[in-house]
């Protein structure tokens, strides 16, 4: 179900500085692709053997390792009002203060300067990183890489692409939630839903100190939103909302807040949406002819 849901989300791209050029990373149907590398798997093998890595390969490796990492949902942006700045953040270095000293400054060197390789540039899709199963370690991280380094790198990609990354992680965790050992994913997914819905509502309703009373409902229940203009907004949403609505950048369309996707049919998407008058939910149809 979730693979199908991811395949219905639009592709997204991010531009990264790589090998002294601007390269493109693309997310599509849950997978991340490095468009400008002819043989990224071979390059990664060489890098693992001591050769030089580059940003695109770092992104591919990081994504493979973090595709099912709950910490991604904590780190990634909650939306346009929650900008993330990864420059200068080097978590691996937080443990590298001189022994016995108290840290006194905040800034650390920017990640990975000068890791450049020469190679063929291709405009064709040359490699797809297929999502590693949850719990898989993925390709080995570089010697200095930590899980936090991976997350920082991925969190700094374009806003649109990080929406899809959050969608994908959500889909992995929703699948895990269905397993006997997956109960621990519930709090992660609920907090992710709360943070993302709350951020969107604050912007949409123009109320920065808005209080949110979130009710997590099953995917078969009708979502809803009610507010009397003071006190808490009551919002009833399924955990899947992060994947199907928020991650597709459909949260607020034409000034209306999207409660869920009622139907997807090719180029036509029907949303259940609510206006700022907080009237009854009504369908909103997006169609690309």
């Amino acid at each position, binding site marked *: 179900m979730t693979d199908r849901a991811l395949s219905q989300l639009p592709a997204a791209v991010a531009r990264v500085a790589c090998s002294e050029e601007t390269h493109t990373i693309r997310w599509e149907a849950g997978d991340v692709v490095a468009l400008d590398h002819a043989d990224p798997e071979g390059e990664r093998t060489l890098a693992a053997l001591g050769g030089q890595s580059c940003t695109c390969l770092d992104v591919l490796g990081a994504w493979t390792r973090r595709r099912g990492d709950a910490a991604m949902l904590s*780190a990634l942006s909650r939306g346009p009002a929650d900008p*993330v*700045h990864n420059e200068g953040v080097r978590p691996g270095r*937080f443990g590298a203060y001189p022994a*016995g000293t*108290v840290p006194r400054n905040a800034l650390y060197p920017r990640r990975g300067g000068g890791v450049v390789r020469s190679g063929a540039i291709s405009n064709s899709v040359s490699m797809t990183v297929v999502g590693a199963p949850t719990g898989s370690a993925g390709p080995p991280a570089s010697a200095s890489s930590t899980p936090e380094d991976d997350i920082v790198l991925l969190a700094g990609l374009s806003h649109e692409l990080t929406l899809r990354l959050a969608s994908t992680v959500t889909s992995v965790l929703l699948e895990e939630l269905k397993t006997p050992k997956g109960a621990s994913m519930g709090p992660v997914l*609920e907090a992710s839903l709360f943070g993302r819905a709350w951020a969107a509502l604050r912007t949409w309703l123009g109320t920065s100190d808005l*209080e949110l009373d979130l009710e997590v409902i099953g995917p078969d229940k009708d979502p809803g939103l009610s507010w009397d203009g003071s006190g808490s907004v009551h919002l009833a949403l399924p955990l899947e909302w992060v994947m199907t609505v928020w991650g597709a950048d459909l949260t607020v369309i034409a000034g209306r807040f999207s409660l869920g996707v009622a139907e997807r049919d090719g180029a036509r998407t029907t949303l259940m949406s609510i206006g700022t008058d907080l009237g009854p939910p009504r369908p909103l149809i997006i169609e690309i002819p």
Partner: protein
Amino acid sequence: MGCCGVPKSADPETYLRLACERVLPSEGRRNNGPQSGGETAVISRACIAAGTLDQARAHQVLDEYALAMALRDQHRGRMLMHRRRARAPVEGQRLSAHRVAVCEFHFERSDQHWILERVLFADDATHLDLSGTDPAGQMFNQRRRGGLVGPGPRAMPHKPQPQTLTVRDDQGTTVTGHQGTGSWGGGSWQSSYRTDVPLSPETRWIEVDGTRIELPERGPAPEVHLEEIERRDPLRAMLYGEIMSTDRRHGGDDTVDIACRALVDIGALGEDDPLLREIRQIAGAVAGGAPVPGLAEPWASLVARFSKTDGPQGRLAIGAVIDDLDGYSIRLDALTSDAGSFSISLAVSPGTPLLRFPGVDLDPSPIVWWAEDDRHNAYVAFFDNGGGSENLAEGQVTSLAALDPRATELRLLPTASRTRAVINVPLAGLASPT
């Protein structure tokens, strides 16, 4: 809605995560100040103490959000990441103090007026605390302050204190003292110096750059012994810890209220639980500084002196060392008393009990600085200033109330989770208030 806007949730991890989500947005941080977010550490402590959330899981959640915070606010994020290191075991050192001399010896050096305030004879070095004023400056009469600060508006030239001193004892040993921490500004400076070789603790005098200074007669070091303390229920111990939290003392969040609300919200305690009533009564009395009928000990004795400003004045050498208080070596150097409070100058290794970051640290200080006198008064002191490294920190803790002027002995009671130390300090030598 639960405490501080955190949505209620019966699941402790969800409750903690929602609290983290609440403090993450940038506009929330601007509204709530740099210490915003401290409630998440309090909530985690409450959930752990109630046995509803595994400590490792709670710390994992806080670490995740520390990284999230670092991606939105590097300064705050760095502080939060620091606590991860604070959890790592730190190798300490055994501190020593063969003799501590506190004095106020005034002398002239070059064109400055100097005051020698303390000499500590340790195993590996001799430490001197000095202050100085420029010729036109005011006499320096502030209590010594640790840490490094920049020059003030009436600043002396950059670093007016010397980098090294030549120090000699009556045994003929001559050594070099190197400057450690220090500060300057407003026409005066203070610095600590550490010699490269220890001087004799038996010496009757020392010479500092050629000026001979007679030291006070060496007195007996106070006896130190350890006592096991009664193990408290973890929940009660945590809530007592919140009452004694450095965060509260330094104007941060009301950690007691946050902890109590969290315990109610996750269903660990009922709103009318007797423990919550007791904790709120104690916290109210300590915060309000007024005795409350029925207040249990030691809280009643603690609060009794909050309103007094009749403390004796003066400074006494202590010179006691606690070798191992639940893993910490503590050197107690001197007691300074004034009308409103008293302070203990001390050093701790590892230094974590003195390196506190209100609103950031996951746990309260592992040591609570209790004391009591022979007039049945209780006192508690909080880290006031100082600094250092994870291996060794120096500074002072300052009491919330003044010493009773009729007291003749103070029992210092640094208290850790399993043990407390007892050090009897005679108070003869402090001047009664005029």
